[in-house]
């Protein structure tokens, strides 16, 4: 977690954004991230991001649910407290299908959602820097870190040429923090100084 300097470009159309992403990457700039108001299909590929393995995690959680249900019920009904219900055998597997299925789904869904929150680093009370208040509304916002390899003047001029509607230089915390949302004043002071 560190406060860094970012060159920020806001685009108002996906069709300007995609060529811009391509140009930025072609020119060797490293994109910190792109913030969009909705899921823009193909943007991850255009940025060179790998696919997510979240669904594999989901599958593993599901298997945990299946084995928990089968293991727990069969232990109870064959060893811990065997009772004959309705003439069924102690190991009445078909009768356990419903609960086994439900626990599979439950484990997979809860596990995946928690993993999703962990990977994205989101949870109630977490705050992150918002580069543009309209990045959740109608702007597609690209941030590039400014450092020794990417000098400010050069990257800003470049971003303006890619068709950005607005550009700015911002000091921002790259990670997340706990606290109040209105760190606005602090940021304004930071950006002014």
């Amino acid at each position, binding site marked *: 977690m560190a406060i860094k300097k970012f060159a920020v470009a806001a685009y108002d159309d996906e069709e300007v954004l995609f060529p811009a992403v391509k140009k930025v990457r072609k020119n060797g700039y490293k994109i910190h991230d792109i913030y969009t108001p*909705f899921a823009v299909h193909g943007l*991850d*590929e255009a940025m060179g991001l790998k696919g997510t393995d979240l669904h594999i995690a989901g599958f593993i959680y599901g298997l945990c649910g299946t084995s928990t249900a089968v293991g727990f019920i069969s232990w109870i009904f064959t060893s*811990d407290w065997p009772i004959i219900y309705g003439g069924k055998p102690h190991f009445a597997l078909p009768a356990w299908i419903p609960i086994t299925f439900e626990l599979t789904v439950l484990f997979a*869904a809860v596990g995946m959602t928690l993993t999703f929150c962990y*990977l994205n680093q989101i949870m109630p009370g977490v705050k992150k820097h918002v580069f543009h208040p309209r990045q959740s*509304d109608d702007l597609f916002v690209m941030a590039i870190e400014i450092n020794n390899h990417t000098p400010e003047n050069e990257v800003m001029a470049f971003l303006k040429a890619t068709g950005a509607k607005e550009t700015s230089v911002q000091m921002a915390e790259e990670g997340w923090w706990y606290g109040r949302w209105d760190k606005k004043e602090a940021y304004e002071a930071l950006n002014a100084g």
Partner: protein
Amino acid sequence: MHLKYESFIREPLVDGDKTYHQVSEDIISPIERKPGRMWYVGFVFSLILLGYGLFSVTWAVYWGLGTWGVNRTIGWGWDITNFVWWIGIGHAGTLISAILLLFRQGWRTGVNRAAEAMTIFAVMCAGQFPIFHMGRVWDGFWVLPLPNTRGTLWPNFDSPLLWDVFAISTYFTVSLLFWYSGLVPDFALIRDRATTKFRKMAYGLASFGWTGTAKSWQRAEALWLVLAGLSTPLVLSVHTIVSFDFATSVIPGWHTTIFPPYFVAGAVFSGFAMVNTLLVLTRKILHLEEYITTGHLEAMNKIILLTGSIVGVAYITELFIAWYSQSWGEQAAFKWRIMGPYWWSYWAMMTCNVVSPQLFWVKKLRRNVPFTFVMSIVVNIGMWFERFVIIVTSTYRDWIPGSWSYYSPTWPEVGFYLGTFGLFFTCYFLFAKYFPVVAVHEIKFVLKTSGDNYKRSMEKLETQSEDEFIHIATTHHDDDHVLEGAGAHH
């Protein structure tokens, strides 16, 4: 020029001239305004109903279930009828959010948020009935497999009633996760727009710090797709298991293999009716007619027609099988359903569920909003009677004529039912005030393909040949990525 092209035969999903910003404005601004008078009236009325329900339930818990009309012959009266009715209503939300996502039905984007909310509130209402039907409700946790000092004595995992516990709690949890994970980006939108300190803080908490990075959207889409894939069999399993409560017994009228599909179809049928009831009102009060269009209502009416017909076929199949089985118990049960002392409930069910949805074959009626509203209520009355018929008219004349009985509800039972309406609408009114009723980010996702103004701008393409289309596309863009999206290479 946008290169996602959708046929003109499909009607637009978003009417009017919309930009991304206008979509946010239309859907979020009602949250930022003070609610209108109608909202207060409705909300207070719901609270009164909820209060009356609480009183009725407290009465029944304090004095015992002897205050209800159920007796030794008819053990499941209004209570379980209402349970099955509410849980069925919930199914439409999952069908819209999950099954229609898997089938890539674009029109779900306008209605999924409200329908999923309805699912969650309906399941909350449904859950109350079996819990309070236990009588000694403070022992309700005995249904959970918890270590205890009586052995440990475990619940019966072979019993459909315990399957219900797992099915309904899983269903509630998964629906909630699916719904809320979709809400997070929209809460972030409200947070970023917020002008007051409190709103910024509240929606800041609710949005989990979402900023909409490319990677998080990628993961979100993976999550939603898998949750949809999980919810689809889940929703089918829930009503299947509810039907097992009846079908695995040996009561004539219940002991039928047709129950699982018949219950699921009936659940979807009543659920879509409830979605229509809510959305006809919501779109009117919040002025969302451009997002929840007549086309949306028509699509749902088509599903009502389909599932209503499935339910009708199931009713007739039941009658046929009763005759064909040559089982006198079955035959007697169905004879008394049709012309016993409860004949009126059977015929109310038949009229509302089998006859009236057939009117939706007429396109004019499918697209008529007031008619849709009336029909949605008729269907829900019919589906309530279906559950009443199954539960009461299968048990009131049992194997021993000496114990034949008749059942009418008492006021605490009726009050309990009204109370769940209070719970449902209290939640729904709060939802309509504080939550984005339409999924903003999903509407933006389909806007350029299915928005009215964007479709109109594509009109000129209709007259072009394929070669011309590709030519124009390639000269306007040097970016081959956009072209891949349009499939113009193929």
